[in-house]
């Protein structure tokens, strides 16, 4: 039930409104400034990277004399030029800025060249000679697994005598699934501009989701106190997790270059370098063994999730943990072993990507559910429903109780009805019975996604709010804008609190000198955390203003309210700007730093128990696909989505997140294929070879609705996080493809791997007699 305060609220002026993105008008005019658009300070130099020619080996010699002598080159830097620690890793001290003894992946940065123009730097970088004693590279998950190399120890959630329960179950199934990785393909590539300052200080403009980490790592590498480094970013041209840790290295190199030359230095990776040198979504190899009853209800599950982490730990601890946290999706597992291996490979270190491991864990259990349904010849939706959390079946594999287990069933029932699932399944069966070459499939899959950083201490945020004498507001917080509309939502919150128009709120760049010690804008947490911090700051200033007005007008504080650009004080009212002017003259402090930390969280990783999540966000999608069994070509025909964002602070932005995440997830599971050769070289390193969805891939019939719900927890305006959860709605597309394939051989489980490219689909279909399918009957 929605909490009572949500029901009794007066209509709000900004919050809950479908307002446009704050930068929309600038975006469409090319007037929104990204880092490469900032007018370059006088004398700015440009940096390009020289990368490793092989994926694994020991460096014998680095000869950069031809680089140094190339036209317009000012300096060349390597690991030897690093004054502090040669380490860009977020936690594990296992990833260098520049490789210096060993090469761990193909294209790993070895040196940087600094030149007068970007063109000169790129050309010079090609002239480096890096001699390596080559070792055999482990490229695939399987190779890495066989080698026994890990970036982190194995980890598991285990409960009950799962093996015995499986063996004793009325029905059992086993299977494997390979899940491909995904390139972020933010449209704006990695970029940083470092401007040297006094006393060794440096200001770094970085397209990063995590300015504080950039600050700290720049300081670490430069052997500076943190306070001498400032990191600033107004907006990114897309992030999706790909700029959580992956922006750091380039900011560090720009800062090193600025120090080496004493001049401002800019680095902007070209697309090929960006794709070869920065991490991606983890590929997973999944193996499962499950015992279940005649209704398809799981009694015990043994899931093995092995991740290709790449050459270092990066964020793999959290990513692979989150795969485990979501290997239940919305389903109750009585006994289980959810076991993970964090496999080291000689590939770029995989990293955060929208969903952060959750999508892979969820895809695994959804495949399990489908396999059960296929074996029992049940409708997969019925098996899904039979396994949902419910009364007495409400504890997750990590010990958190699902208190709102009623949401998923209600949401699924509603979507089942509005998407007309049952009738369409029947119609599809009829279609498939008469269509020999084209086959349809349908699937309705749910999403339950835990909201909070699973590293509990990250669940904190700060904000800095200034009110000037004229009543205009300078808004700053620790969150970063990557297109998700965070700044707009937070501005709505600030304007709502002060009761003023949005035009009075000035949104400013995220900067580590305004709000320190921030967390990455990640884990869908941006609005939850920063919105709260801003609200707290605004309320603090408002409290001071109220107290001042109460004294000045001699009216009790509870008769003072802020709305419609005015402050109502008893029977009188003054313009907000008039009160702030008076308050200033009354020596009232009109600036506040807000601070918020998420309540109720605790997580004991050693025990594998606790409450890592403040709440869950839910959703479900029903997808219908059509495929050609002779070519494997596939088209998504219709998608219905119902998604739970609690009470939406901005329905337009939230729908934008849902649609965008769904399409991105659909790309991951269909056309987006990362292909490495056996030497560990990424072959798909540009949009000509790596295919993200285009406009025509979006289903022609695409129906998206917000679930009418609230947040049982005291989140900002009872909203729910939306950045990541809807990506996993795209699992319905993958399941629908499998459903279409299943129709060819009912009763036989489908071994479809992700992504479901035409080739993967044809492989899963197996041999087809094309003549029989096409010959006239």
């Amino acid at each position, binding site marked *: 039930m929605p909490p009572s305060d949500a029901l009794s609220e007066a209509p709000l002026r900004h919050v809950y409104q479908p307002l446009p*993105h704050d*930068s*929309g*008008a*600038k*975006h*469409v*005019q*090319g007037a929104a*400034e990204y880092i*490469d658009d900032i*007018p370059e300070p006088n004398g700015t130099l440009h940096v390009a990277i020289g990368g490793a020619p092989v994926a694994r080996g020991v460096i014998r010699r680095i000869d950069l004399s031809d680089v140094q002598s190339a036209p317009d080159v000012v300096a060349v830097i390597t690991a030897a030029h690093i004054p502090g620690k040669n380490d860009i890793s977020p936690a594990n001290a296992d990833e260098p800025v520049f490789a210096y003894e060993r090469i761990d992946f193909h294209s790993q940065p070895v040196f940087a060249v600094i030149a007068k123009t970007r063109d000169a730097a*790129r050309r010079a970088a090609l002239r480096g000679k890096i001699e390596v004693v080559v070792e055999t590279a482990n490229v695939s998950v399987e190779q890495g697994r066989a080698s026994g190399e890990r970036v982190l120890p194995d980890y598991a959630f285990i409960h009950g005598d799962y093996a015995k329960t499986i063996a004793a179950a009325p029905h059992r199934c086993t299977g494997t699934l390979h899940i491909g990785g995904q390139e*972020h*393909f*933010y*449209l704006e*590539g990695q970029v940083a501009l470092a401007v040297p300052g006094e006393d060794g200080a440096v200001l770094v403009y970085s397209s990063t989701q995590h300015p504080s980490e950039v600050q700290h790592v720049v300081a670490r590498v430069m052997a500076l106190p943190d306070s001498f480094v400032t990191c600033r970013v107004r*907006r*990114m*041209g*897309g992030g999706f997790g790909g700029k959580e840790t992956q922006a750091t290295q380039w900011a560090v190199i720009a800062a090193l270059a600025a120090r080496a030359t004493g001049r401002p230095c800019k680095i902007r990776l070209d697309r090929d370098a960006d794709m070869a040198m920065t991490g991606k979504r983890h590929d997973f190899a999944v193996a499962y063994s499950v015992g279940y009853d005649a209704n398809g209800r799981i009694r015990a599950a043994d899931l093995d999730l092995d991740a290709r982490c790449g050459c270092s730990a990066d964020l793999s601890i959290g990513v692979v943990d989150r795969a485990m946290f979501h290997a239940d999706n919305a389903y109750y597992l009585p006994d289980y072993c959810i076991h993970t291996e964090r496999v080291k490979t000689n590939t770029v270190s995989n990293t955060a990507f929208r969903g952060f491991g959750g999508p892979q864990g969820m895809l695994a259990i959804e495949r399990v559910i489908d396999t059960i349904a296929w074996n029992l010849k049940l409708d997969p939706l019925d098996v899904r429903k039979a396994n949902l959390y419910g009364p007495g079946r409400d504890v997750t594999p990590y010990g958190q109780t699902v208190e709102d287990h009623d949401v998923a069933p209600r949401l699924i029932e509603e979507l089942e009805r509005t998407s007309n699932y049952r009738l369409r399944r029947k119609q599809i069966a009829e279609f498939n019975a008469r*269509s020999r070459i*084209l086959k349809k499939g349908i699937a309705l899959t749910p999403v339950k996604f835990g909201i909070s950083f699973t590293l509990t201490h990250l669940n904190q945020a700060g904000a800095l709010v200034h009110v000037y004498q004229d009543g205009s507001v300078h808004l700053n917080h620790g969150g970063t804008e990557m*297109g*998700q509309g965070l700044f707009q939502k937070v501005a709505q919150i600030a304007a709502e609190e002060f009761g003023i128009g949005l035009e009075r709120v000035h949104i400013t760049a995220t900067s580590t000198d305004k709000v320190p010690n921030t967390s990455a804008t990640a884990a869908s947490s941006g609005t939850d955390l920063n919105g709260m911090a801003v609200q707290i700051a605004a309320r603090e200033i408002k409290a001071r203003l109220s107290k001042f007005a109460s004294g000045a007008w001699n009216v009790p504080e509870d008769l003072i309210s802020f709305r419609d650009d005015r402050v109502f004080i008893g029977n009188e009212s003054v313009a907000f700007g008039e009160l702030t002017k008076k308050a200033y003259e009354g020596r009232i402090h009109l600036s506040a730093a807000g601070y918020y930390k998420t309540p109720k969280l605790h997580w004991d990783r050693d025990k594998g128990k606790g409450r890592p999540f403040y709440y869950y966000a839910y959703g479900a999608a029903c997808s219908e696909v059509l495929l*050609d069994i*002779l*070519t*494997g*070509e596939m*088209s998504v025909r219709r998608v219905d989505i119902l998604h739970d964002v609690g009470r939406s602070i901005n329905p337009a932005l939230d729908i*934008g997140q849902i649609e*965008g995440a*769904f*399409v*991105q997830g659909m790309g991951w599971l269909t*056309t987006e*294929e990362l*292909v490495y050769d056996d030497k560990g070289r990424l*072959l798909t390193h*540009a*949009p*000509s*070879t790596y*295919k993200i*969805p*285009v*406009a*025509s891939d*979006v289903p022609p019939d695409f129906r*998206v609705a917000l679930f009418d719900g609230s947040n049982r927890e005291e989140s900002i305006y009872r909203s729910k996080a939306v950045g990541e959860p809807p990506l996993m709605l795209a699992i319905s597309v993958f399941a629908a493809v499998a459903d279409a394939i299943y129709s060819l051989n009912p009763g036989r489980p489908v071994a479809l791997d992700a992504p479901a*490219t*035409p*080739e993967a689909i*044809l492989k899963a279909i197996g041999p087809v007699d*094309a*003549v029989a399918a*096409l010959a*006239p009957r």
Partner: protein
Amino acid sequence: MTRSVLQFQRRGRTVRIGEFLPRTTLLDWLRLQERSTGTKEGCAEGDCGACAVVVVRERDGRLVYEPVNSCITLLGQIDGAELITVEDLADDGVLHPVQEAMARDHGSQCGFCTPGIVMSLFAHYHECNGATSRDKINDALAGNLCRCTGYRPIVDAALEVCRGADDQFTRNAAARRRAIAALDDKADLFVGDERAFFAAPASEQSLAQLYARHPDATVIAGGTDVGLWITKKLTPIEKIIHVGRVAELAGIENTAEGFAFGAVVSLARAAPVLGSIDPDIAEVLRRFGSIQVRVAGTVGGNIANGSPIGDLAPMLIALGASVELRHGEKIRRLPLENFFLDYGKQDRGRGEFVRRLLVPKLPPATRFRAYKITKRFDEDISAVLAALRVTVDGGRIADARVAFGGMAGIPKRAKTVEDRLRGLSLTDTGRWNAAAIAVAEDFTPLSDLRASAAYRSRVAGNLIIKAIAEIAGADPGVTRLSDRRTVADAAE
């Protein structure tokens, strides 16, 4: 007559540039020289559209608005045109209708692809004659990647706004047309010196002489391939001959036996003509690159670069096309299939250029089929392209020409498949498979990032069977995911 200054229209005045590095891209000129940073670089290979700008030229008596990828368009290529970028659309602070609709409908999130999307839609706004549709917008946007929105609001915005052009550009059309026409001096453009230059001859004679004198020069037409040598391989190209202004190479002739395309006819201009031969050709060309690639890329360029995966060559080989080449004063003609010798090697001498493509129409009783197989439907390079021209006589295949792309180092005929098809009765389904499995005798395809050898061979064989079945009467509505063939037939 030779001109040594590049000239184009921009923001109501003529820009004249007498000195520039020949390989300078339009995007670098915009961002680094003019300091117009609204136009973005997303990939530098013409695949993402973040850098799209609109180039306006006069053609067939009207102004034509074409979106191009400025990242792989060379500065010199816009000689004589009007250049419009995203900063130019708002009129005295009032958003252009396309911009207004995009902003209102939440068509941007991170905003980095947005300038390119706005420019592609701006071109569509002017070119769609007020008659757009979801499919047409999808085509107009196939070359624009957006990673945030999922496109739905962008397409909705376009549907709302592309209902007839009325903006500052239509209002100033007459003056703009005069200004563009004034630049059309028919002079050869030559900027630079004998060591390094950007040249754009205006006549075939000038081209023949210039290329014979500089056989080491790089010839570009659309630049959609050479542009990548510059931006990706960093090839130090010094001498560039742009053939796009050669009037004699820009024509399309329609004769009794077929069409003759000048080498620099763009794929966009050729598409409706080639598409009139068969709807499958129209459909392949609809999916060929993107609008940005098709307005720049040319029929001659797509042949001359000898790509094993170009979509045009296999279709033209199946049709029995020939290619005409010229060196100095010498002109020769050869069947197109003989032009491709080996991977990366064509029968083209130093200083010799592709002049024309001669494409026969379908003789009576012949059928044509083409299938383009890709990971992603739009703007993707084919894993396999199959093209068949089959002559049917009394329920039997009398003759067949079958060509494939993606199956060998060059676009190539499937001679064994053809042999097995000849004489095949369309109702003799027991023999269909023999033709299909002959693919294995004709080709040993490679495994690469697009597909494995096994997939290519299997699909190639299946496509042969699919073509036979369709020619035997199977309804493409039940044999294809997207049946534009029946739609086209119905429209006729």
